[in-house]
């Protein structure tokens, strides 16, 4: 008899997300992923000045605003028939690199680590670090208080198989604290060129707003090197240590193994060459990317608009009472297939393409040192490993790009908003492939559609009843104790979900969960 377990909300992710799982014989037999919040961004964008899209779409997500700014700016560049100058292109890359540094470090330490690291190990701390001693004293006093919420927000937590090695726990706690400083430093790197962060004002159609000076280059470089040092001495060793402590998690959470990446970090101003290689990895074969193959299906999503539309024709007509629908997240499909997006997709596709030897070498060396083959990457730990390796690669590249900047050269290209036009911008958010599609009529936005990474990863079943990516990755995951389903949240968090635009399965009339039939 299957036991139904609801985890609502899933914390330590961006946004409102919950899952419902059926557990049978200690394993997940079926899963439904639900987004719990809807705002209607695409509806709000209609009739507005197309230029506003860069700032408005950033507010979809406070963790990856830069990615939305980039997708939007690229869509506008295309619609306005302009390309950025060298400086504009490079600075956009540097801003995107800053956001990647910020997000990956924050994700591993401040969102994910508490699933593995035993925070109570701090009570055994015997060293001289004032911050560590401060935390130790605090936890000691909190525990004495006897409150249920003692040492909140770090406790309570699920019971589970946390790390037992005292030194590893203490090192990780120390790095948890340091990670906040690194994330803040990465935000500063973005602000140097973007004006402020979160939500930059410095990305504009045709390039960026901030000019190049030697002082800014130095200011960025100093911070980048500090973070590179953290990646080499903390992040990569810590991910490796967790990998060694939890070898079975290289076999859990594989999912479909179909990957999609749009490419990011433009190497030419037209954007036709990117550092990360775009492509679709289906059934073990790499294909060239063609955005025409993207369709959004809505049989199980609460929209009355037609199903199977390409984002250029995409519609967002909410219908809370639609029969069978159980989420507001659409089900995007590439050539009718569910596709995983994110660092795993980017690293595997770039590696398989054979076009970036440093990526291939790093992937091979890492797998070799862990005694694993490439199939191990399709797993919970594989995703964390790809994230760390990607960060090392991009931090190195960013330093090269930075030194290509030229003071006194233009940073943007002049433009006029056309009366009628259309365009799309494809890029990569930290958590995966991101696309914006715009249609302009009478100088205003006629239609705007965003297909975000978490739509790919966190979406529902498609019209044929084929599960979404996270739903599928959960299948077969062992659950030792249904009251403490820590294994399920480990799988979900490995995707770094960012749920800012979806909603629950509720009937507004009765406020009850709808009974949905799964094909």
């Amino acid at each position: 008899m299957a036991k139904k377990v609801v985890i609502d909300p899933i914390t330590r992710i961006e946004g409102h997300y919950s899952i419902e799982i059926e557990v049978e014989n200690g394993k997940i037999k079926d899963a439904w992923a639900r987004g719990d919040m809807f705002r209607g961004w695409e509806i709000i964008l209609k009739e507005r000045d197309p230029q506003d899209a860069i700032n408005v779409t950033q507010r979809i997500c406070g963790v990856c605003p830069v990615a939305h700014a980039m997708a939007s700016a690229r869509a506008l560049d295309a619609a306005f028939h302009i390309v950025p100058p060298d400086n504009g292109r490079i600075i956009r890359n540097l801003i995107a690199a800053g956001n990647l540094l910020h997000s990956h470090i924050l994700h591993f330490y401040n969102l994910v680590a508490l699933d593995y690291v035993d925070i109570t190990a701090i009570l055994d701390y015997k060293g001289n670090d004032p911050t560590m001693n401060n935390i130790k004293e605090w936890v000691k006093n909190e525990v004495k208080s006897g409150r249920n919420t003692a040492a909140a927000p770090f406790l309570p937590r699920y019971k589970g198989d946390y790390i037992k090695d005292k030194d590893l726990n203490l090192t990780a706690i120390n790095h948890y604290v340091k990670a906040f400083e690194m994330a803040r430093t990465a935000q500063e790197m973005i602000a140097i060129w973007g004006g402020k962060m979160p939500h930059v004002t410095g990305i504009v159609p045709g390039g960026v707003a901030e000019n190049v000076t030697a002082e800014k280059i130095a200011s960025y470089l100093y911070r980048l090197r500090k973070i590179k040092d953290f990646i080499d001495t903390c992040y990569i060793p810590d991910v490796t240590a967790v990998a060694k402590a939890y070898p079975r998690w290289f076999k859990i959470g594989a999912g479909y193994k179909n990957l999609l990446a749009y490419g990011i970090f433009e190497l030419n101003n037209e954007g036709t060459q990117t550092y990360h290689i775009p492509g679709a990895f289906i059934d073990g074969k790499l294909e060239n990317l063609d955005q025409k193959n993207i369709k959004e299906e809505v049989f199980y999503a609460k929209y009355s608009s037609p199903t199977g539309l390409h984002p250029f024709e995409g519609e967002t007509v909410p219908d809370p009472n639609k029969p069978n629908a159980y989420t507001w997240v659409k089900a995007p499909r590439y050539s009718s297939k569910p596709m995983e997006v994110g660092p795993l997709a980017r690293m595997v596709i770039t590696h398989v393409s054979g076009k970036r030897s440093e990526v291939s070498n790093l992937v091979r060396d890492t797998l070799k040192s862990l005694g694993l083959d490439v199939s191990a990457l399709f797993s919970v730990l594989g995703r964390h490993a790809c994230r760390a390796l990607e960060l090392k690669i991009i931090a190195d590249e960013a330093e090269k790009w930075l030194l290509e900047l030229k003071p006194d050269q233009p940073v943007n290209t002049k433009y006029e908003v056309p009366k009628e036009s259309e365009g799309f911008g494809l890029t990569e958010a930290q958590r995966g492939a991101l696309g914006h599609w715009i249609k302009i009529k009478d100088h205003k936005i006629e239609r705007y559609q965003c297909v975000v990474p978490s739509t790919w990863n966190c979406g529902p079943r498609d019209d044929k009843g084929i599960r979404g990516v996270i739903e599928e990755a959960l299948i077969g995951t062992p659950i030792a104790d249904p009251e403490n389903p820590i294994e399920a949240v480990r799988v979900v968090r490995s995707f770094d979900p960012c749920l800012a635009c979806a909603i629950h399965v509720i009937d507004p009339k009765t406020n009850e969960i709808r009974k949905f039939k799964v094909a």
Partner: protein
Amino acid sequence: MRLTRRDFIKAAGGLGAALLTSPFLSKVAEAIEREKKNFPVIWIQGQTDAGCSESILNTVQPTVVDMVTDIMSLRFHQTIMAASGHQCISVLHEALKSDEKFILVVEGSVPTKDEGVYCTIGEDENGRPITFLKWVKELGEKAMYVVAIGTCATWGGIPAAEPNPTGAKPVTEIIDPKKVINLPGCPARPHHLVGVLAHLKLFGLPELDSKRRPMVFFSRLIHDNCEMRPFFEKGDFAKSFGEKKCMYLLGCKGPITYNDCPNYQWNSGLNWPIRGGSPCIGCAAESFIGSTGNGIYMRLPEAKVPGIPGLKVKADKFGTIVGAATIGGIIAHAMGRVLAHKKKKEEKKVEEER
């Protein structure tokens, strides 16, 4: 921030060790110790992108760890807390049942259409989702103070922008505004939250303006202290992004936005939008993204002024939003300055806008 008994004793150290054993001083030290107790904070997120939470993580001094160990007892914050599912929802239920006083921080707007089903957190005992609207009402009623953090919680923000598909509302329209402190900004700024929490802890409610914003952060327009103000006075305006001059013609919302960005720049003081070559987009203003006719790069006033090509000033359709006197004053001021400059006349003395 934290003044502990140890700090006090250290500070009092000059008085000599003997004095420290006096009953009087130990009483003072005890009082300080009592005050040290971190007040419980429950931080809930509705229609938000978590940008305000991300922004607060950029705090330098105190650090994030200082805040959690020394300033507040952060009982609930979905992005940070270890617990998931019913374990974390039980924290909220406990707060509702307990006599303990707490401060509620609300991030994001509150959807009210269709009884608030557009945002839910957790389920009740019957497996029914609990709406964010219900949480805000119940926790808000119980809370000692409510901090509405960010533009969405303060004004409604983008979710409430035309056509407001989910009936999004600000916190002050859901609960008794008398206990609300508004910290607008997209995102809100770290020192604003730290400042408010510190003030509540040490001195109680800070002085607020009529829109319930702390005066200490929101009493000046961006325009008042803008580093590009001299260019405005000279009538020397940027024509494109990246020109480091007055951004008025590029749609700068500095003249209608109350915030302290020019005084305390962003991200450890490294930069801020106007210095970064782009106009202020008015992210802390009540009108931010409000209506389709209110474009980010649209010049504030809307009518033509003869003799000055490109500068359209006069009619004041933003008056309804920001107060006719304010914007009228700015425009009169701007025109006075611009004309004076163009015609090389002596500077007229023009009344400040406020």
